[in-house]
């Protein structure tokens, strides 16, 4: 029964790359894996999942009440098929973090959160204390492992596969106590922060919602995603889904540029895996310069227009 079940994440139209990253983690454990896609009209998503290199079977559970990602509904389906698997992996995104502990508790096991590296099926590494310490986590040999995979630590697998898709009907009815109302998405069409190759972020120094246009314009110019510090989100300069950090998104772009962000540990946690970190801050002593690969001590309100000109 050494087999991994991966919980697919999607938005109803496309598969989130977090799924393929979880699959990479399963291969690091050294196991064959299946993928379960839960949703309504899941055909297209299941096809995308089937293309992940090495996928065994894609199990498609199609029911109206699974259309929205309510943990109460999704957890019951996963628990119903848990018997055939030694490992159940989901992403460390808000979807996975909401869902996986519910599954673990229903199965009566502890959960390993945020796997960043794998030694074998029961030995993992993960960051704690906002990434200030890395620890070994050893799950009991032979126990069922339920875990979230720290998506910023894993690259997606290739998409040349052609796994079989199996349809399964839902094993439980809709939960009567939890109802989905709606999703208000903040972002426009910019690349998703968790998969973007470049990210441009603004901090409290942006000083207004209008000024954040500078960040968006520069981001659009180079095809980057747009991010922010908590202070910028709290101040209402930009939507919550742009927050990068311990309690926002943990990202790993090739290029991260921070404008007017001081570099609090909770922010740095979110960008440690970035390829090149650039910081622009008018305070030459700002802590962000300790982690930046390239630093520029200057006023962002002059630097951004100059960059736009030089890159335009």
């Amino acid at each position, binding site marked *: 029964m050494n087999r991994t079940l991966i919980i697919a994440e999607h938005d109803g139209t496309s598969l989130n790359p977090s799924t393929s990253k979880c699959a990479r983690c399963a291969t690091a454990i050294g196991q064959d894996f299946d993928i379960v896609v839960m949703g309504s009209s899941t055909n297209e998503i299941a096809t995308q999942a089937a293309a992940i290199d090495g996928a065994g079977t894609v199990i498609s559970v199609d029911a109206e009440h699974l259309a929205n990602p309510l943990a*109460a509904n999704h957890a019951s389906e996963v628990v119903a098929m848990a018997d055939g698997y030694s490992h159940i992996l989901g992403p460390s*995104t*808000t979807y996975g*973090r*909401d*869902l996986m*502990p*519910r*599954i*673990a*508790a229903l199965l*009566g*096991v*502890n*959960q*390993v*959160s*945020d796997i960043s590296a794998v030694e074998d099926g029961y030995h993992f590494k993960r*960051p704690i*204390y*906002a990434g*200030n*310490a*890395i*620890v*070994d*986590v*050893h799950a*009991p040999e032979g126990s069922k492992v339920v875990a979230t995979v720290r998506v910023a630590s894993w690259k997606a697998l290739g998409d040349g596969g052609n796994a079989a898709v199996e349809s399964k009907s839902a094993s439980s009815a809709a*939960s*009567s*106590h*939890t*109802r989905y*109302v*709606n*999703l*208000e*998405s*903040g972002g426009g069409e910019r690349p998703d922060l968790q998969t973007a190759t*470049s990210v441009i972020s603004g901090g409290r120094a942006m000083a207004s919602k209008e000024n954040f246009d500078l960040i968006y314009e520069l981001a659009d110019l180079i095809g980057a995603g747009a991010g922010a510090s908590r202070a910028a*989100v*709290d101040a209402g300069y930009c*939507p*919550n*889904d742009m927050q990068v950090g311990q309690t926002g998104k943990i990202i790993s772009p*090739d*290029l991260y540029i921070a404008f007017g962000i001081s570099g609090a540990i*909770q922010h740095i946690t979110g960008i*440690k895996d970035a*390829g090149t970190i*650039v910081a622009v801050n008018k305070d030459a002593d700002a802590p962000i310069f300790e982690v930046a*690969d*390239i*630093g*520029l*001590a200057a006023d962002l309100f002059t630097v951004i227009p*100059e*960059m736009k000109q*030089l890159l335009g």
Partner: protein
Amino acid sequence: MKILVGIKRVVDYNVRIRVKSDGSGVDTDGVKMSINPFDEIALEEALRIREAGLAEEVIVVSLGGNECQQQLRTGLAMGADRAIQVDTSENLQPLTIARTFLKVIEKEQPGLVLLGKQAIDGDNSQTAQMLAALWDRPQATFASGLNLSGDTATVVREVDAGLETIEVDLPAVVSVDLRLNEPRFVKLPDIMKAKRKPLDVISLGDLGVTSENDLEISHYTPPPARDKGHMVEDTAQLVAELKSRGLV
């Protein structure tokens, strides 16, 4: 209605975390300890609900040794009505914590349980979801908005894609995010008053819970350091370097 709020004693968020040289843990000697920031927000929300007349009693609960009474007293000073310490010397893992909360729930019968969405030490983000599962009640995680009306709660959740709204029947478990509210400051007279509020101590065993800590956590190491970077003089140099690295 009673509201139960979970409180964890953690290393203060402003403290620079140092891993012990023998890899056995992080240094907590003489380090400032505080209520986990998310739990403080959970408590603030509970107090506001009570102040709005929608709840009668706010109970703060912490699992730990006598040292966590300090955080429970802070919770009482913020305005909680009473406190429960579940006495244990073990650093319990979320499944056991959830089982413990369930026992307290069976005794206290709260209409709402408010927890932080994660503790800033273990960063697990599990307890609320596990508790909801074991209790067979709804979970609403990462809340940045909470509205009670009769037997339901409407919760705005901070998710990767934006703001998701769900509706749950009470009783429910809600885990809170940072933007839900700004906790009040504790005033000196409140600290004095808090000393006279009830703080009950029960042992884990008396609640009938046995620890199921079966994940072994070891080999603490500091994160790999990034290579030291350098400063550039102006925007032109910055752009030139980004271009030469093939990044733009």
